[in-house]
């Protein structure tokens, strides 16, 4: 079982490495990062190096997260749409192993990009003579957990709908949009506007908002780390809790993806 899992992971990683789409997205992301960072190399002073390093680190975390987020969706939709999954399903080995390998391969890339980001931050801290804060590492690890949640959600959507619909779905139906909607509806209800319809809408929105996975469930509790880059014992505990939350969301998405795959027919023709 383990051998089959790593065989699939190896194949997915080759797909990432050789895909022009992934290469193009990667180049765009690196390009954006370089454009954002270049001014720091020419216009920085010793006084603001720490803030610059923090910005670089945050940018790296976000861009790494962005690069890896869609990879699970990419693999799933590639194999489902060109039917190459048939070649896998007609060989011994549970289809769940193949599914797990997609989550794992995307997570490997997420971890690798965040590790690369952490190493770049460390190298810059040495170059700029800024004391390296463990908060940089903390944020990189936290970004891996956030990426895992998006990877899981997009992979699940990729098993059900067209990849474009999946992307639109995650852009429109996420914690942020429903949070804003909830806030707006709450304000309207508080001001007595809209009547029973708005009240009912608010109920629906609240239910969806509570159900949707959060990217950073302990953002309020760990907000200090982002600012000061100092990590208390309690912050590490919250990081552990984030890991568990991320694991739970991934497990739920895995089960939903498995269910979606079981319901699919893989005939190439009728």
């Amino acid at each position: 079982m383990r051998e089959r899992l790593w065989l699939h992971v190896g194949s997915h990683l080759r797909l990432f490495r050789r895909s022009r789409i992934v290469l193009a997205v990667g180049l765009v992301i690196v390009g954006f990062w370089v454009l954002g960072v270049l001014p720091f190399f020419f216009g920085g002073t010793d006084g603001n190096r720490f803030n610059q390093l923090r910005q670089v680190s945050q940018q790296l975390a976000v861009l790494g997260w962005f690069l890896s987020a869609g990879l699970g969706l990419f693999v799933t939709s590639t194999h489902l749409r060109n039917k190459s999954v048939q070649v896998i399903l007609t060989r011994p080995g549970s289809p769940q192993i193949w599914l797990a390998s997609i989550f794992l391969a995307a997570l490997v890339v997420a971890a690798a990009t965040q590790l690369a980001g952490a190493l770049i931050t460390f190298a810059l801290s040495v170059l700029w003579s800024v004391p390296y804060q463990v908060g940089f590492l903390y944020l990189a690890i936290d970004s891996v957990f956030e990426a895992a949640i998006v990877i899981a959600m997009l992979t699940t959507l990729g098993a059900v709908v067209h990849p474009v619909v999946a992307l639109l779905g995650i852009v429109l139906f996420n914690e942020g949009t429903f949070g804003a909607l909830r806030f707006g509806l709450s304000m309207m209800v508080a001001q007595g506007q809209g009547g029973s319809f708005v009240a009912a809408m608010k109920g629906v929105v609240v239910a969806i908002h509570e159900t949707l996975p959060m990217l950073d469930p302990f953002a309020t509790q760990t907000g200090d780390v982002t600012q000061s880059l100092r990590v208390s014992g309690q912050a590490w505990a919250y990081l552990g809790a984030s890991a568990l939350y991320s694991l739970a969301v991934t497990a739920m998405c895995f089960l939903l993806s498995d269910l979606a795959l079981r319901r699919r027919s893989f005939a190439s023709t009728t």
Partner: protein
Amino acid sequence: MIAIRGLVVSYRGGFRRPPVKALAGIDLTIDAGDCFGLLGHNGAGKSTALGCLLGLIRPTAGEVTVLGERPRAGSETYRHVGYLPEEPIYHGHLTVAEALVYYARLQGVRDVEARMSTLLERLDLAQWRHQRIDRCSKGMKQKVGIIQALLHEPKLLLLDEPMRGLDPLAVMAFRDLLLEANARGTTIVLSSHLLGEVEQIARHVAILDRGRVVAHDSVANLTRQREPRYAVSLAATDTMPADLPGLSQPTRVNGELHGTVAPAALHDFLDRVRAEQLTLVSCALERATLEEAYLNIVTEATHHA
């Protein structure tokens, strides 16, 4: 080896359209060691039947057993099954060799290099082993499919339109590989439109028409003429008699006289040939081709429907 009982598969017909019945209750038994052809026109249900044998399509009703088990995705039974899909749906981002090793290792075969090299050579694909599959031609992808299906020496081979995209030399090489595998005891089930090829390989065939089995017999029985006749040809001379006993439809072509003789009249005909000292060029029992038999059966089925 394979048993199908009352297999029904219906596909959803889309919005406000009735379901489409791809298979309308078929029964088939395929014995171990057989080489079995699944014939039928487009939409007859061949690929659907193969999909059910592989567990890729859930039957609406009926029962399928392959190697004694109900097929399901990822079953351990597939260790002994080789499948060639109709479309070249392989992992395009891998090279030919990478994909073949990947598939073989999923099948549980570790040491594939020697057999893979032999098959690559035999199908004239060795020089392309480091080519990415998505950069291969259609015929090359089909060869990759053939090799991946044969690499682990399966007990059962399920082939969907296996000759598709192959050049004549590759068809010959593939036919030899199939016959060798069958001689080693591999059961072969192939669906194809190329009836001439099926006739050369298969011992038994089933003809599907609109989701039903309209014929299931040996190729020998299907190609046996209802009114057998001998096709004869003689070297034509100026002195040969105008009529020979039992010879029907005589025609002169390139200095030879061709015609047919009923079995009952063959002795009298040959006696007369001897008596007239004519040269008999050939005399053979006429058989229908599988294509003729197929057309007769399908036309009959259409009339009955």
